[in-house]
């Protein structure tokens, strides 16, 4: 069990993590999601006592990490696959870590077998591929047979087979009753591995819910409707008719319409009643990846609401750790649309400086307002306090 309460970390004027509270429970894999630079690694370092929180506390099994009498028997961690001396052989690397926590030498060969590195154990880790480095890091995390495991981006650099192996390993470790906390910036990977998700963006909590809830809350169904290209007036007519029927209509770039809030037969009925021919009427589901993008985009938005509507500022970086606070809302929108938000652009209506909470406006197909409250709003409702006062 990992418990964080009001965890914050400032580096000078930069806020990496702000007021983060969550629990990671044993017996399941908990995914820790966030774009690059959202504070995942900083949070992991604070859990492991490497970085001292600016405020707040974090405990593992009720004790702060640095107070554990034998930390390695309690907690195993893979922070960075390359966090080792490249001139040392894999076996010696593991041996020195085993000795440090009083673990018998034979355990080194056991974990080498588990990760499949036995045959290269005598080679210097300098020559290892990133994937082999990840395996060695995982071996080090498993050395103490710990009850709590933290993995920071464990599938980085692994080939598909390695990724599957890591996925199975995580699930098995969790099934053994351990607490498994895995960070990733890939929603798709977490959807397959994790049962519970903690999503952060720009150092703040965006979601803390099970994967099932996350999917239910975020992957709204929609229909795509296409009217004959030759008669654009039909499209406008249909838009009006569907809006009247209570649907939400968003035009897509290629001329199709994205309809949410209406079942397919109803759309067909409405079109028929209005005497409109359809070239396409197809059911769709927004992917988790899209939902995640939309959510993390929300974390970014209120710092960059100045983006003029309909002008996505190019393939902007995903949020990059700029502090949410103390940043002028009329900033120059360093990042706008993430590449992933596909159909979005035109919807953002007012280029105003309104850090308005509920709706991430850019993406035109957001969940209907009455949808489950879980997701995006969270960060924006955070008090926009001065970073200073958190110390």
């Amino acid at each position: 069990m990992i418990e964080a309460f009001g965890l914050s970390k400032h580096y000078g004027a930069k806020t990496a993590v702000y007021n983060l509270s969550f629990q990671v429970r044993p017996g399941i894999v908990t995914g820790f999601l966030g774009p690059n630079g959202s504070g995942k690694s900083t949070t992991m370092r604070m859990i492991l006592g490497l970085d001292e929180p600016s405020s707040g506390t974090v405990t593992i099994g009720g004790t702060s990490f640095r107070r554990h009498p034998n930390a390695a028997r309690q907690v195993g961690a893979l922070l960075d696959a390359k966090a080792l001396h490249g001139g040392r052989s894999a076996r010696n690397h593991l041996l020195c870590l085993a000795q440090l926590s009083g673990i018998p030498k034979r355990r080194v060969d056991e974990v080498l077998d588990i990760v499949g590195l036995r045959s290269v154990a005598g080679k210097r880790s300098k020559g290892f591929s990133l994937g082999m480095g990840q395996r060695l890091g995982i071996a080090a995390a498993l050395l103490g047979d710990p009850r709590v495991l933290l993995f920071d981006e464990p599938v980085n650099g692994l080939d598909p087979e390695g990724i599957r192996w890591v996925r199975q390993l995580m699930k098995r470790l969790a099934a053994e009753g351990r607490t498994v906390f895995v960070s990733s910036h890939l929603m798709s990977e977490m959807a397959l591995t994790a049962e519970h998700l903690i999503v952060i963006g720009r150092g703040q909590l965006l979601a803390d819910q099970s994967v099932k809830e996350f999917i239910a809350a975020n992957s709204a169904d929609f229909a795509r409707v296409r009217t004959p290209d030759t008669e654009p007036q039909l499209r406008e007519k249909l838009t009006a008719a569907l809006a009247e029927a209570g649907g939400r209509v968003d035009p897509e770039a290629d001329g199709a319409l994205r309809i949410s809030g209406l079942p397919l037969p109803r759309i067909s009925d409405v079109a028929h009643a209005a005497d409109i021919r359809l070239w396409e009427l197809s059911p769709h589901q927004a992917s988790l990846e899209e939902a995640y993008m939309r959510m993390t985009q929300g974390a970014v938005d209120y710092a960059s609401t100045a983006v003029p509507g309909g002008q996505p500022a190019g393939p902007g970086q995903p949020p990059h750790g700029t502090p949410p606070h103390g940043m002028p809302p009329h900033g120059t929108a360093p990042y706008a649309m993430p590449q992933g938000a596909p159909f979005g652009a035109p919807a953002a209506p007012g280029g105003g400086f309104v850090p308005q909470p509920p709706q991430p406006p850019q993406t035109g197909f957001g969940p209907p307002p009455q949808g489950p409250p879980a997701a995006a709003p969270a960060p924006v409702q955070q008090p926009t306090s001065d970073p200073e006062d958190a110390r």
Partner: protein
Amino acid sequence: MSTPYAAPQAAPAAPGPHGGVDHRPARPVEQSTHLGHAIASEWTKIRSVRSTIWTLAVMFALVVGIGLLTALALESGPYAELPVLGGGLFGMMLGQLAIITLGVLTVTSEYSTGMIRTTMTVCPKRTRVLTAKAIVFFALTFVMTLAATSLTALIHSAMLEGKPLSPYHDLNVGADPSQAVETATATSQQWLQATVGVSLFVALLGLLSLAVGTLLRSTPGGVTTMLGLVLLPFLISLFLMTESTRELGDALREYSMLNGLSTLYHMPFEFTEDASQVNGWPLLGLLAAVTAAALIAAYARISTRDV
């Protein structure tokens, strides 16, 4: 996947300690770890990287090699130009640079590779890690330099003892000039200082480098700082020869690290009439005090700063 290592998905199936549904409710009571574990770990670390082997080998070769060449050169002269064991100084002046490098690297290589985060995750007691590093490093370098200095001293003693004293270099003469021996010889105090004393001095210098490395967390920064500390006071003193600055220059020269080493070889920079007054221990004590202060600073730094 053409992996050179075993098929990964096969491994989990093996009934290892992680296999199956071993919830291990009956885990043995976890014993806490102690300094001994950290020392064993640091010993594994220091012996398993090439930089250790290289720096110690270079030190050994420089000290013994240059010592041998010096002995050969001195042997060809008609008189004993130096104290019998004094020729060891020249090799050690270079050899100490290797120890400084190793001392800095012992800590900074962990920071530059990121290994320190792994270490601190396994053992969150940071001061214990630093203590273990200091002990292992100090013991290893002391033993290695003691071997090098002893071998050199034996060579010098075998080749140079008994040479007639030069009338102008009376350093070996006893307290009473009338009792002056005619041939060069090394007293037991000279032996002790040129072997144990010098080895302690160089190992302490390495320990100081280790502390500086902990403070700076940078290999180039640490090595440069240490080189400056060893060489600059003496070099600066050479420019302070004018009347007004002479006192400062003399002090810099007297307390420079080079003079500390040189004095242990009974060749202090300031010429002393009475050779029996030459004593390297006080300057060794000074270095020990400086090292202790730097280590205290390093402890404070490592326990408070983020890794």
